[in-house]
C-alpha cells in the first residue's frame, strides 16, 4: 500500500515536470509566432535574437558587476525589512494597543504606489540608495504583518499545556513560540523577496545608479535596443525565480513537520 502510494506520487511528479516543459515549448512557439507576424526586431524581437543578445550581455566584463550591485541593493533592503519587520511584528503580535496604533502605518505604506515611494526617495537619497529604500518599504509591511499573524496564531492550549508541565519560559519561547511563527515568517519572506526585487529594478530605472540592472534596461530602451530590454528582463526573471527557490528550499529544510 505504502509503496504503491509513493510510486504513484513519484510518477505524478515526473509527468508534472513534463507539463512544465510543454509550457515552455508553447511559450517559445508563441513568442516566435508573434515576432514573425510583427516582423520588426525593434518592436518585438524574436527569441533567437534575444538569446544571442543575452549571451553577448553575459560575457561582457560589466555583467557580473551590474548583477552583483543590483542584488546587493535588493539584499540590503531585504535584510533591513527583515530585522525591522520581525521586531515590529513581534510587538504588534503581543501588544494589542501597539497593534492598533501601528496598523494604520502599515496600511498607508502598503497603499502607497511604488512609484510614489521611488519618486520621493529620488528627492531624498543618493541614486544607489533609492532602490534599497524602495525594496525596504515594500517588503517591510509584508514581513511585519506575517509575523504578527503568526503570533496571533499561537495555540493558547499548547501554552497551557507547557504551564501544567512546568516548562521554563525560555524553552516555551524557543520550542513553542518560535516554531509557531516560523511558517508565517517564511511565507512572508518569499512574497517580500519577489515584490522587493521588482521594486529594486523599478527604482533603478528611475534613479540610474552606475551599475544596475534597471539602469541597463533604461539605457537599452533609450537606444531602442529592444533585444537588450528583453534580455535584461530574462535575467531579472531568473533571479526572482531562484531567490524564491532558495527560500522554499530553506522552508522545506526547517519546516520538516508538514
Amino acid at each position, binding site marked *: 500500500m505504502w509503496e504503491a502510494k509513493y510510486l504513484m506520487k513519484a510518477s505524478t511528479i515526473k509527468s508534472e515536470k513534463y507539463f512544465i516543459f510543454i509550457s515552455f515549448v508553447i511559450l517559445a512557439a508563441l513568442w516566435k509566432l508573434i515576432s514573425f507576424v510583427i516582423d520588426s526586431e525593434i518592436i518585438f524581437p524574436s527569441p533567437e535574437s534575444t538569446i544571442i543578445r543575452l549571451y553577448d550581455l553575459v560575457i561582457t566584463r560589466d555583467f557580473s558587476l551590474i548583477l552583483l550591485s543590483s542584488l546587493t541593493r535588493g539584499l540590503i533592503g531585504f535584510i533591513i525589512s527583515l530585522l525591522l519587520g520581525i521586531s515590529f511584528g513581534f510587538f504588534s503580535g503581543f501588544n494589542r494597543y501597539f497593534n492598533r496604533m501601528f496598523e494604520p502605518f502599515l496600511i498607508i505604506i502598503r497603499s502607497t504606489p511604488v512609484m510614489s515611494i521611488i519618486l520621493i526617495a529620488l528627492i531624498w537619497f543618493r541614486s544607489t540608495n533609492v532602490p534599497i529604500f524602495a525594496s525596504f518599504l515594500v517588503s517591510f509591511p509584508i514581513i511585519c504583518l506575517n509575523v504578527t499573524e503568526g503570533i496571533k496564531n499561537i495555540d493558547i*492550549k*499548547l501554552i*497551557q499545556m507547557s504551564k*501544567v508541565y512546568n516548562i521554563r519560559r525560555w524553552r516555551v519561547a524557543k*520550542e*513553542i513560540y518560535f516554531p509557531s511563527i516560523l511558517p508565517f515568517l517564511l511565507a512572508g519572506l518569499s512574497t517580500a523577496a519577489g515584490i522587493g526585487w521588482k521594486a529594486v529594478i523599478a527604482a533603478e530605472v528611475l534613479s540610474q545608479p552606475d551599475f544596475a540592472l534597471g539602469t541597463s534596461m533604461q539605457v537599452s530602451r533609450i537606444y531602442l535596443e529592444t533585444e537588450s530590454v528583453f534580455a535584461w528582463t530574462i535575467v531579472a526573471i531568473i533571479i526572482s525565480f531562484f531567490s524564491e527557490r532558495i527560500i522554499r528550499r530553506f522552508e522545506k529544510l526547517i519546516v520538516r513537520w*508538514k
Partner: protein
Amino acid sequence: MALRIQNLKKTYPGLPVFDDFNMEIKDREINCILGPSGVGKTTLLNIISGITHPDSGQLSDLKDKTFSYIFQEPRLLEWKTVYGNISFVLKNKYSKKEVQDIANRYIEMVGLKGFIDYYPEKLSGGMKQRVSIARAFAFPSDILIMDEPFKSLDFKLKRSMIDAFLRLWEIDKRTIIFVTHDVEEAALMGNIIYILKDSQPTKIKEKIEVGLNPKERLKNPQELTKIKDILKKYLN
C-alpha cells in the same frame, strides 16, 4: 495519605459554583468525578491543579504536588516527533540518558515504538491521544488529571484507549483524578466514583467505591452492567 478538599467555596459573579464542598482524593486510586456538563467539573480540576484560586476552603497536602494532564485534545507540538513531544516535558527534570530511557519506555508501553520518529500530522487521532497519555505518565507527577480525555472518540477507539491507559496504570499506579460525563467511562475506570449533582452550588450526590479492579471489569460484562445501572440510577 489522601488529599482533602474541605469547605471549598468558589463563586463566579451571580453563580455559586461550590459552597461548603468536601471531597477526598485517595492516593494511588482512580478517583472519578462523574456529572453532567456545566456542574463545574473543570473548575474543580483547575482549583486542584492551582490554575484557579478558590474564594475559601482548605486543600490539604496539595502544596508542592506536581501534576500531569491528559486533556480532551492531545495538545501535541506538531513540529516535534512522538519522541520529541515526550522528551519536551522531561528535559529539565532528568539527565539526557534518563530522558531517553523514560521516553522510550513509555512510547513502547502505549504501543507506538514503530512511530517514535513520526510527526503528529502523520498519526491518527487515537495514536495522538496515546502519545498524550504516554507524556502524562512519563512526567514525574504526583497526580495525573484527566479532563474528559476520551470525549471525542468513537466507541471502539475509546475502549482501546481505556485499555492502553489501564495497562499503564497497572504498572505505574499514579493518583488519578478523572473527570467525565460518560457513565460507561466511569464504570470502566473508576475505583472511587463521585457523582455530582446538577445544582447551584454543586454538591456530591453519592460516593461509590467499586471493589473490582478496573482490569477485571473489562473481562466481566455482567459486573460492568451492574455498576453502570447503579451509576445511571444516581445520575437521574
